[in-house]
């Protein structure tokens, strides 16, 4: 049980990078970008093929990021210069990428077991430090000794990487270009009248978003030990689920707070799915159904809560008005009865 949750936490923090990408396109740019389903696999495919052919896995991961950037830019170009509807340009790119991903991999599945990946390097380096023993003895001391993770190295490495990306994103969105990018999602007409090239900004934003998505895909492939042409199906919904859950639970007061919320949302999503799959009658194939259900609940629940709070407030006000009328009525009655 604890091991499963630990695993969920570990992959959650990797998927969080993808969720940050979805946040950038979906929320900041207000662009429902379905490229994600394809670019996630593109990242995985590029990294996997390079690693299999003997390249340095860290360079392979970075090149996956570049591939995602290009894919995102193409969606942006379709939308801005081709004047194709936002949803449709994303779908077109996603479909095109399916074939491209197959071409990159040459087959539908590339296993990475027994090869040196970026994450296995990290694990090996970590093992040399011997810090695992300290963490593990701590866990054993609190009575969790029977569910020790394989290694702490990957988790800690990924926390550092994800937070570095989060901080870079926060920082970028405060720069002059970043402000213009946010305004592009908020009020295009206004930012154009302030001399910003909104076409360029949409392309840049989608490029960056998909770069993060592909980067996350590359790392997930290395963590899971394979790249598969179908691993991106429904990725946009998972990203969206993370964003919505995170925003609902942790709030959106500032940019830094929101990006933190998105990371939290990604981790919570993974844990919820892991727990759901332990229910007797659910099978791994039900995962997409569970995801869809989670997103629907996350979308509807806040509205229901808001509505019921409003109703309570109304009921209170009506009660207080009635009460004051009752008092007034009593005093009226007493005035009448007095003479």
């Amino acid at each position: 049980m604890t091991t499963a949750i630990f695993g969920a936490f570990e992959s959650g923090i990797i998927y969080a990078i993808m969720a940050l990408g979805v946040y950038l396109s979906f929320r900041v740019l207000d662009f429902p970008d379905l490229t994600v389903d394809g670019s996630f696999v593109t990242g995985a495919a590029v990294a996997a093929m390079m690693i299999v052919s003997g390249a340095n896995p860290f360079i392979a991961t970075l090149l996956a990021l570049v591939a995602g950037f290009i894919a995102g830019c193409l969606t942006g170009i379709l939308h801005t210069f081709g004047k194709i509807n936002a949803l449709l340009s994303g779908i077109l790119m996603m479909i095109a990428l399916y074939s491209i991903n197959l071409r990159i991999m040459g087959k539908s599945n590339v296993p990475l077991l027994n090869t040196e990946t970026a994450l296995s390097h990290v694990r090996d380096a970590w093992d040399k430090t011997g810090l695992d023993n300290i963490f593990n003895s701590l866990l054993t001391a609190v009575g969790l000794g029977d569910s020790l993770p394989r290694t702490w190295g990957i988790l800690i490495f990924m926390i550092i990487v994800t937070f570095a990306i989060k901080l870079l994103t926060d920082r970028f969105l405060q720069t002059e270009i970043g402000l213009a990018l946010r305004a592009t999602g908020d009020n295009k007409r206004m930012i154009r009248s302030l001399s910003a090239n909104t076409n360029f900004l949409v392309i840049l934003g989608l490029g960056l978003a998909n770069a993060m998505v592909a980067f996350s895909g590359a790392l997930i492939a290395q963590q899971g030990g394979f790249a598969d042409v179908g691993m991106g199906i429904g990725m946009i919904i998972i990203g969206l689920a993370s964003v919505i859950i995170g925003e609902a639970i942790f709030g959106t007061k500032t940019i830094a707070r929101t990006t933190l919320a998105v990371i939290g949302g990604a981790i919570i999503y993974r844990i919820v799915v892991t727990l759901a799959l332990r229910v007797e009658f659910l099978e791994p194939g039900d995962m997409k159904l569970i995801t869809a259900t989670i997103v629907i609940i996350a979308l509807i629940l806040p509205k229901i809560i808001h509505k019921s709070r409003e109703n309570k407030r109304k009921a209170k006000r009506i009660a207080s008005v009635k009460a004051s009328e009752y008092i007034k009525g009593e005093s009226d009655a007493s005035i009448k009865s007095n003479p």
Partner: protein
Amino acid sequence: MLQLNQIHKVFNEGTPDEKTALDSIDLTMKKGDFITVIGSNGAGKSTLMNIISGVMLPDIGAIYLDNKNISLLSEYRRAKMIGRVFQDPMAGTSPSMTIEENLAMAYSRNKNRTLRKGVTRQRKEMFREVLESLHLGLENRLNAKVGLLSGGERQALSLLMATFTEPSILLLDEHTAALDPARAELITNLTKEIVKKYNLTTLMVTHNMQQALDLGNRLIMMDKGQIILTVDEEQKKKLTIEQLLNEFQRIRGAKMTNDRALLT
């Protein structure tokens, strides 16, 4: 300063809905000129604004700004030199961003946007200073989201954002029309103050004849895509609404039919 040469613009050309929006418009503005534009609906006032700002390109004709031909320059490139305030108070600001962030975006208008921080301590000081000129207390709410401001406050902020980088020309497109009378007066007064302070060359479209007479040093009247009347500085000082309406009747042989134009 600004020069329009023989501008033509036709909409839906070759269809039954064909409409000549601008018909050989010639207009020259000197530095510091403040021209008010009046005319009934469909006279081509808004099209004129859109042609100058680059939202639309003219079919024929040339536009010169600071002796540079900008006829084919895209909207965002022209925007470096042109400040604009829209009729809709929501249109000129970004609601989910803070006041200081909005000002930072306006501040970058005539510069190249870089990866430097948009809101620095130094800029904050400057933003506070320019906000004080609005007398709305916004200088104490730099971190408030613009979406929380009232329509009047947002329009005042839009006006400030359009002007404080001192553009070559300021375009005001009925920028007080969507506000209640008190707010409209506030914005009108602010417009006067700001235009005077920066000595801005200004073109203002309005439906309010009184406003058209009160503000600016020149006036033009448009109808059916043409400039049918130009009033220079000396004449404008003596002009009354009555005279304007009579003039329209004399030129067009018809009464001005637009109620909104008569509401003063």
